[in-house]
């Protein structure tokens, strides 16, 4: 799918917990993949704002995104009403790879659950064994849809045990950088692949401005990759973490 500029319509907007909104957006978009994101125009800000695709309904061409309130951009988006127009670029970025015969652990920390929900759904469709564990600070922040919610502590707390118990042989994750880093290191130790979805402040979101760079080591060579176009999904082991 080529990425394009769509003018969609808010089909529904719902506050799903104290600072997260769920938006269903209908548009002409034909298809998109798990792990991809969209970049939304906020008229009160200079830059567009990127959001992971949390679900996609091909029949009625409806995208779902989850928006957690951060600053003025997300505030504006949360104030949208049914039938309002929404201008976005989509689909953007690469996507998750699927492996049919693996047991997948999906880890969503906080709002990082958004792409994991989409991933879980697709894996279920493809009959791939998966287990989604999510982490939230408080009960009020829980976003539903996981197999297990960690509240308080960290998603990483008992994860090594979980990996052993569930015979996990691949990990997918999205969340704060520190979580992704630790998870990648653990995966390396356990010698299983780990895919992580990164975030960066973005300007163009289509790979031209070089504003959202991440350094990867491949074949012992360090090189720049753009989170918006080469990513947002990367192999944890290849990332040169700060």
């Amino acid at each position, binding site marked *: 799918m080529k990425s394009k*500029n769509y003018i969609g319509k808010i089909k529904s907007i719902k506050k799903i917990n104290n600072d997260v909104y769920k938006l269903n957006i209908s548009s002409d978009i034909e298809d998109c993949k798990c792990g991809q994101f969209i970049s939304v125009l906020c008229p009160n*800000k200079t*830059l*567009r704002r990127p959001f992971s695709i949390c679900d996609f309904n091909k029949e009625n061409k409806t995208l779902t995104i989850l928006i957690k309130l951060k600053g003025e951009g997300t505030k504006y988006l949360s104030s949208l009403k049914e039938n309002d127009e929404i201008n976005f670029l989509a689909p953007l970025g690469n996507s998750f790879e699927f492996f049919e015969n693996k047991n997948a652990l999906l880890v969503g920390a906080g709002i990082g659950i958004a792409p994991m929900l989409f991933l879980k759904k697709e894996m279920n469709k493809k009959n791939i064994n998966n287990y989604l564990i999510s982490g939230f600070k408080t009960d009020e922040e829980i976003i539903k849809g996981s197999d297990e919610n960690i509240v308080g502590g960290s998603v990483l707390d008992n994860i090594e045990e979980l990996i052993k118990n569930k015979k996990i042989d691949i990990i997918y994750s999205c969340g704060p950088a520190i979580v992704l880093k630790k998870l990648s290191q653990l995966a390396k130790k356990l010698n299983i692949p780990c895919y992580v979805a990164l975030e960066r402040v973005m*300007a*163009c979101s*289509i790979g*031209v*401005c070089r504003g959202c760079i991440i350094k990867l080591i491949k074949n012992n060579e360090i090189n720049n990759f753009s989170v918006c176009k080469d990513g947002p999904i990367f192999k944890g082991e290849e990332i040169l973490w700060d």
Partner: protein
Amino acid sequence: MGLEKLKTILKNEKTSKTLELRTPIIGASGTYGYNSEFENFIDLNCFGAISTKGITIEKRLGNDGDRIFEVQNGLINRIGLENVGIEAFIKEKLPVLKQKNIDFLLNIAGSTIEDYEKLAIIAQENDIKALEVNVSCPNVKQGCLEFGLNPNSLFELTRKIRKNYDGFLIVKLSPNTSDIKALATAVEQGGADCISAINTLRGLGIKIDYIGNKFLKKTVQGGLSGTCIKPVALYMVNQIRQAVKIPIIAMGGISKLNDLFEFILAGADAFQIGTANFIYPSICSNLAFELNEFMIKNNFKDFEHLKGAIINE
């Protein structure tokens, strides 16, 4: 709808060197990639040219750390001239530009005069029609802006590039100066065919929040672009118009049709669009269409009578 009316010929009256553009709308360096990255969003046939990301002799990875900082109506960037290097450009990017018939300005930057000379020679060898010399990038530690802020060095630099390059030579000026007229004059006298302006203004972005008994801060020092620099850009373009005869490609905060008219009044012959591409990726073709429509509807052949009409101070 044909865009014949938008055909723009930039001409150095002294040497009769020209650059022909399908339309006067050019994608600005650093915001348009190397070749066809924008083709999903625009009609490549309807805009004038791409100015490539600034190319250096060697490949550069650019700056570490945060590179983008949003401000009101603008953007601070410190990409640090990340680019593939001239060799990879010629090998990998140039063929695509040719194959897709995309007109372009090769934007080049160097840390020494020799760098610029080498790049000029390579451009000459590869028959590149137009060169845009970036002497105004605030985001690299060495070179570049150093040449761009001193009229004498700028004159020398322009002359040396000119010696090695026969195509249409554009020098891109920085607004971070107390005397843009002197810089423009140096460039004209050094033999350039055209001036493009402005590059970004020096700026510092600071975000500070007091959270949980601590100040958390984030800072990005770099180049300021976008709508917020438009009044400065108009001023600079107008000053340049008063100092030199060669054509001007204007930029700085352009995002709508009226901006084009404002820059024409200030003295522009063509335009580049930078930051606005990030917000409206189709803006280059949209502006071309809007301008065309305006000309047809109101029976304009060109805007010669408006050009540089403001020369009061």
